[in-house]
């Protein structure tokens, strides 16, 4: 049995919330009956496929569709000129309010120039996959290669080829706090480190897919694997039609992790449907996905940390250079997250931070679980480990010494307003792990590492985030919930049912959640940024409170009961010596014009927009803290690393569904271990060599141990019932924990990801072990 524990510090009598209930969506998935985006088919359906640039930087000198269009079965071949508004604006997706975010654009189909290997240039639509395959080969496109730049540091140097006018600097954030130079001058010890992270692919099991059609009213409807139904606005803009004439439906998604946050098939499907007036299906191949979908930002992180002999950190200097790839997407925001999280869950005294992201002709980079807060963990936790060694202070102790507490202020200026259980998470993993195991044989070494992290949940406060949900009773007492939240596997939809069940007493099997439809469900924003429990959870909470209070008020009046004494539960309305069936109570409501349906809207915390020189008293709603522990065994002759043991502890505030929480932690840790040890998008001067899953290595079941989880519940989160977000936080620590464990095993630290066997051997050599 995967061992996991839950430790609650604020007990509440919860009936449904906090139960490890099997999720209602899982039943269908396990039966095999869930219809994902690629599972729907229509008669007289067409198929669409993109023709993509084979080179990373080029002028397009010729485009000719005649031969391709003549292939029997081809409906049309489209170039950029065929797109009414051939631009994808990068606003922040899913926002209900316009924000003055960095606007950068890219073409839906490139007309004049391509900037990355795989950029879409033509769209072919045909009546069969076979005709498509033939026609795509025959689209005649000629390129004249241009000089490109493939490293962000080089891209920022004078004279570098400009990926976009006027230059390659896309975004910049600075933090200056306190007197950094004085802090360094006064320090007993200064530790320096340079760390590199690599471009990583989401590698969800479901490649991008969707189906589009015109409904009976001529509304362009897209049923696509997406984390954001609000992209209907972007599609409408591209086609030049009113927003209200586009509908996006999000079925259950086969994994998102941020890779389905930006548009994927939407604009192309929409174009094909709009042009042909017929249903169209688009299924990207895995190879296409690996080639051209935005990746996690590769980052170069330079840290200098100043501390006293007793381990107190006096100052941090951080320099971050991130690769934005060929188009902006969400890079500026990713870098903002990196900047805010760059010093970790610690008091660090004075700070000087410079963070820049640069355009290159590499594949674009954008959102990926952790969103910039993840890469910096490798930096700040490696520094903590080096500091611990230099000062001969145990790694656990040095972290506790510097741990943030309620009232402390982050370098960016935001105070921590909730209780921080960092020390408890450190103790939890150390207690759980016990002693370090012995090596399994000669020429093997065992090491242990720990890593703590901080990761925000909820969106940047100046984005004016909000979410809405509609909850309504049926006359028979069953419940309907409508919420625009896309469910990407984290139990987003079923959590809403659990919350509603807790508040209204309706049993889970009498609650139906309709989700993810931009036309028919109230908009709840993106399933990203670990925000949905906070946002749509609270929206459902609000709607349920309205319903409950309305119903109880009506019953109190009608039955002459004192209102305060009434309770709503599975048995209906009850009080001391009184009981009423729910259906009867509903009749009373309707007679008294008390609504039995309610729309709840939850508005996220607000703040002022940030500028380049970051200083804000509020950037994120709140944060989740945690610590991981990892034991590894290293083969000193081959450099292969085996993860023997992994324990992860997080304060989740309140676990709405403990099994879902454990699942999120376990899955995120394994994804993090993949980045630590295995995964890399192979680029050679912008040419993406990653040809398939045979090359892009994600962890399989034999690559990881059972992930042991310790779930702490402070009750201090801002989500319903005091929950914090848990989707992203656990992906941060694994790289650092593994690196520290390897350092412990062989005596030298890996500083480049992924930590391949070759890099481990280099550490073994550097430490002077006999080779």
């Amino acid at each position, binding site marked *: 049995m995967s061992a996991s524990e839950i430790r609650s510090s604020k007990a509440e009598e919860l009936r449904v919330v906090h139960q490890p209930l099997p999720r209602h969506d899982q039943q269908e998935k396990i039966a095999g009956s869930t219809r994902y985006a690629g599972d729907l088919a229509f008669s007289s359906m067409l198929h669409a*496929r993109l023709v993509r640039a084979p080179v990373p930087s080029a002028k397009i000198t010729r485009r000719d569709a005649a031969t391709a269009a003549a292939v029997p079965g081809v409906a049309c071949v489209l170039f950029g000129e065929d797109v009414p508004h051939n631009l994808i604006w990068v606003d922040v997706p899913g926002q209900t309010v316009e924000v003055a975010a960095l606007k950068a654009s890219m073409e839906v189909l490139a007309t004049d120039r391509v900037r990355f290997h795989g950029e879409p240039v033509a769209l072919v639509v045909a009546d069969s*996959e*076979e005709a*498509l*395959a*033939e026609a795509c080969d025959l689209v005649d496109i000629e390129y004249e290669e241009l000089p490109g730049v493939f490293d962000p540091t080089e891209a920022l140097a004078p004279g570098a080829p400009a990926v976009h006018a006027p230059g390659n600097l896309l975004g910049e954030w600075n933090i200056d706090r306190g007197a950094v130079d004085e802090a360094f001058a006064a320090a007993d010890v200064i530790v320096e480190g340079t760390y590199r992270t690599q471009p990583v692919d989401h590698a969800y099991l479901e490649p991008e897919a969707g189906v589009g059609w015109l409904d009976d009213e001529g509304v362009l409807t897209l049923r696509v694997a997406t984390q954001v139904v609000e992209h209907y606005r972007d599609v409408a803009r591209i086609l030049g039609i009113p927003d209200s004439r586009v509908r996006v439906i999000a079925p259950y998604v086969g994994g998102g992790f941020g890779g389905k946050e930006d548009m994927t098939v939407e604009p192309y499907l929409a174009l094909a449907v709009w042009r042909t007036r017929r249903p169209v299906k688009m*299924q990207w*191949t895995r*190879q296409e996905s690996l080639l051209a979908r935005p990746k996690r930002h590769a980052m170069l992180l330079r840290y200098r940390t100043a501390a006293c002999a007793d381990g107190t950190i006096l100052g941090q200097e951080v320099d971050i250079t991130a690769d934005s790839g060929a188009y902006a997407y969400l890079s500026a925001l990713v870098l903002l997250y990196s900047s805010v999280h760059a010093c970790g869950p610690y008091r660090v005294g004075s700070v000087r931070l410079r963070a820049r992201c640069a355009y290159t002709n590499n594949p674009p980079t954008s959102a990926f679980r952790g969103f910039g807060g993840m890469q910096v963990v490798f930096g700040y936790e490696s520094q903590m480990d080096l500091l611990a060694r230099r000062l001969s202070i145990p790694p656990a102790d040095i972290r506790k010494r510097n741990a943030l507490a309620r009232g402390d202020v982050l370098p960016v200026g935001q105070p921590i307003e909730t209780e921080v259980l960092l020390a408890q998470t450190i103790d939890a993993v150390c207690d759980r792990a016990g002693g370090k195991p012995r090596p399994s044989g000669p020429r093997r070494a065992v090491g242990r590492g720990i890593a703590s992290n901080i990761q925000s949940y909820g969106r940047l406060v100046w984005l004016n985030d909000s979410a809405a949900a509609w909850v309504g009773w049926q006359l028979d007492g069953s419940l309907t919930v409508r919420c625009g939240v896309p469910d990407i596997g984290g139990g987003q939809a079923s959590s809403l049912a659990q919350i509603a069940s807790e508040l209204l007493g309706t049993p889970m099997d009498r609650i139906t959640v309709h989700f993810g439809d931009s036309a028919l469900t109230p908009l709840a924003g993106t399933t990203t940024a670990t925000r949905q429990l906070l946002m749509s959870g609270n929206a459902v909470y609000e709607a349920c409170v309205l319903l409950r209070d309305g119903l109880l008020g009506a019953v109190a009046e009608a039955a002459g009961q004192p209102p305060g004494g009434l309770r709503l539960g599975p048995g209906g309305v009850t009080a001391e010596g009184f009981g009423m069936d729910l259906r009867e109570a509903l009749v009373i409501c309707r007679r008294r014009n008390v609504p039995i349906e309610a729309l709840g809207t939850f508005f996220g915390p607000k703040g002022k927009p940030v500028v380049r020189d970051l200083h804000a008293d509020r950037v994120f709603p709140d944060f989740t803290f945690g610590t991981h522990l990892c034991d590894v065994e290293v083969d000193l*002759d*081959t*450099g*292969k690393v085996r993860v023997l043991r992994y324990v992860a502890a997080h304060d989740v505030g309140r676990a709405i569904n403990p099994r879902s929480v454990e699942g999120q932690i376990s899955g995120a840790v394994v994804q993090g271990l993949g980045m630590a040890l*295995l995964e*890399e998008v*192979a680029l050679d001067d912008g040419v993406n*060599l990653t*040809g*398939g899953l*045979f090359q892009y*290595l994600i*962890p*399989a079941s*034999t*690559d990881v141990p059972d992930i042991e989880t310790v779930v702490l519940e402070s009750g201090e989160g801002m989500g319903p019932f005091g929950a914090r977000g848990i989707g992203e936080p656990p992906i941060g620590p694994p790289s650092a924990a593994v690196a520290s464990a390897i350092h412990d095993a062989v005596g030298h630290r890996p500083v480049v990801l*992924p930590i*391949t*066997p*070759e890099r481990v*051997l280099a550490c073994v050599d550097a430490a002077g072990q006999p080779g």
Partner: protein
Amino acid sequence: MFTRAFRYERAQRYTDACDLLREHGEEAKVIAGGQSLLPMINLGLVQPGLVVDISRLAEGRELTVTGDGYLVLGALVTHARLAADPAARAAQPLLPAAAGQIGNARVRNRGTLGGSLAHADPAAELPLVMVALGATYEVTTGQASREIRAEDFHLGFFTTGLDDDELIVSVRAPVLGPGWGWSFQEVARRDGDFAMASAVALIRSADGLIIESRVAVGGVSDRPLRLADVETALTGCAAADLAGRVGPIQGISPAGDTGASAQYKARLTRVLVTRALAEAAARAEEAA
């Protein structure tokens, strides 16, 4: 997966299959297990006009130990069958050990011995073991057959000594004789991935001294390589001194990639050869 159409013909006998290959030349591709061909078709690397299915031939499925010390395997024996067969394990344990490392269970259920040998991926397990064992392959044109030694068959990257109308019918490999020990070593990034390097050793020893050996490496050249100089250096050597006799491996030319450089693979090869020798020697001791 989303490929152009091609034609399909199912052969009943080797002669039919070879006839079809002669008739259709370059546009015809043979499919047995399909575990190498179909991924290449799905990825658009190969576009046959005709696929000749030999997976249901009545022939090519034997697995027998002969009286004169050979294990004879039909070309259509699947990796799963070879990995699990008790007779094969008793006769030549190197073969089931190697077959069991191939890919994953699904690949092993469909993939065939003949298919793997004919595909000739330089990092594949079975060509390496066949070269190490000095196995011979029987190949046919449907009209005539000939024998070809493994080391003469595997010529380069995905290149073999097969003529365009020839198919492998069976493989003859020596059984593990008395006094012999064996070892199969490979290191991949994950279980079942293609090896970054692999090594096979067979050692016959007596009274703690090496009498003869066969050593070969895979994944570090365009085909499996016998290490004749290592074999020579080992003769007469004491089992305890083996590690000292293995220097940097000569004659290999590993290809570097993002995950592992050529230098690392060369270093890994030496480690694996050393380990293979130690394990084979230990097994030889036990066998004595």
